[in-house]
């Protein structure tokens, strides 16, 4: 079976750890995601690509209990918003599907997940997973990514651009087995 590809090119930069590909406006300074040419905040076209921080804090969360239209994966699955240190709030799947096991401000890290329909691995997407900081239970070890834990406050600007796909194997299958 061939390895699944990212759902959409330009969303995820491969690497260790993988990162979301966003942008930053050089005119107004605001970050955005996904990457677009014109700044959504000031309409300037003087924007540059920027890898986003891999770590952030949980800002809002819920669980989806019934498959929404066009979705063939497992339910329930976690869904929420993670706030990144560069001042961006990202809407994302969460690897934790039990709202009771999450809390506001919890440390989260970005992971790559494989979307599946039954036994078929379909595509790679992004999600955020709780970081075990010793204060709350996290998803079982079997669903945790192998990648090393990034610092939650690591600024995106210090990261080198990632131009090559480092691995064809996803870092994790968390979220949708």
């Amino acid at each position: 079976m061939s390895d699944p590809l990212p759902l959409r090119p330009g969303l995820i930069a491969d690497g260790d750890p993988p990162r979301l590909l966003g942008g930053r406006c050089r005119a107004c300074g605001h970050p955005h995601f996904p990457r677009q040419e014109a700044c959504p905040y000031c309409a300037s076209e003087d924007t540059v690509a920027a890898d986003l921080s891999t770590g952030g804090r949980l800002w809002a969360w819920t669980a989806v209990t019934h498959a929404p239209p066009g979705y063939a994966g497992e339910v329930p699955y976690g869904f929420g918003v993670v706030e990144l240190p560069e001042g961006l709030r990202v809407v994302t799947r969460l690897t934790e599907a039990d709202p009771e096991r999450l809390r506001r401000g919890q440390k989260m890290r970005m992971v790559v997940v494989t979307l599946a329909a039954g036994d078929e691995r379909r595509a790679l997407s992004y999600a955020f997973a709780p970081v075990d900081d010793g204060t709350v239970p996290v998803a079982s070890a079997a669903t945790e990514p192998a990648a090393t834990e990034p610092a939650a406050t690591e600024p995106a600007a210090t990261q080198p651009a990632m131009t090559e796909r480092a691995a064809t194997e996803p870092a994790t299958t968390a979220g949708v087995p």
Partner: protein
Amino acid sequence: MTSVEVAGVGLHPFGRFAGKTVTDMGVVAVRAALHEAAVGRGGFQAAFCGTAYGGVATGHKILGALGMTGTPIVDVEAGCASGAAALMLGSAAIRGGQYDTVVVFGVEKMPRGIIRSSFFEPWQEEAGLAATPAYFALRAQRLMHTSGVTKHHLAAVVTKNRRHGVHNPDAMFRSEVDAADVLSSRVVCEPLHLWMLCSPNEGAAAVVLTRGDGDGGRVRVAAAVLRSHLPGAVLSESTPLAGLADDGIPAPSTLAATDAYEEAGLGPHDLDVVECQDTDAARELLSYEELGLCPPGEAAGMLDVGATSVGGRLPVNPSGGLLSKGEPLGASALGQVVELVRQLRGEAGARQVHGARVGLAHTVGRGANAGVVIVRR
């Protein structure tokens, strides 16, 4: 001074009608509104039809079935605010002197369950990011965090609106529910339970607008505003994939309400009755704050003291709201306007808000699109 007056209103009940087409329902609503306005073929110069799922030339099909084509017929899509967008166009055309009389209507026939929207890209659907109720749930959770709203308040919105809906013959659900029933219905997306979410359904509503001098005692359109979103609010109805860590970005509903109050020359304290977007129970409470019906953070308190029940200081959703009527997207906003016109005329029966003279209708949804219409007499 030129005013835009409501010469007639018409409604096809909101519900589920197997075997009926969008055209069938639109015909019922438009015919009723034209009849009430005593307007026939040749009596109007343009038509505006709001629909999101009706398909190509929905307005033409309806007016064609009535033998009334030939004028400009403009189909308008603005998500949940499609009807408000149609009303804005029709009202502005009269105010600007382009037409004397227009027909504005909205229709929809929605399948059950989570709405599938072409707004989302296929990859977003595949990734499970097109989960509309989950966005509602996140908004609800944030409101609970910032405004002291509890699950009991969410249940209380449902019981209030369902109590109002008992007296609305055009509503889909006409039975009261109690809070325990609401809280024991299954969780769709925490904190939202099934009964806290409105049901996408079917229906039609129509309004005939005409130029007047404001002296005829008719209900007037004092404002009809549509606004889109400003970027940056991650949980805005624009459903972006990201936003800024900034809680101060005005919501599209606030933008529309601010413009509408200015256009009408009045403020929220002048309102007697409100029909607002209660797609889910939290959305109604959020609307109190976004429309300026109460100060930020005080929506729960406003509900607690019964201010927004019929008989209270400012009844909200005396029609039963979308929680009782269901939500046929394109018909939703004009259904609210029909309710307000009947309220202002004193024709609302057991759900009448006594002495109502100024009413506000609010819709907000995908786009983002927010519509605010103010009617008065």
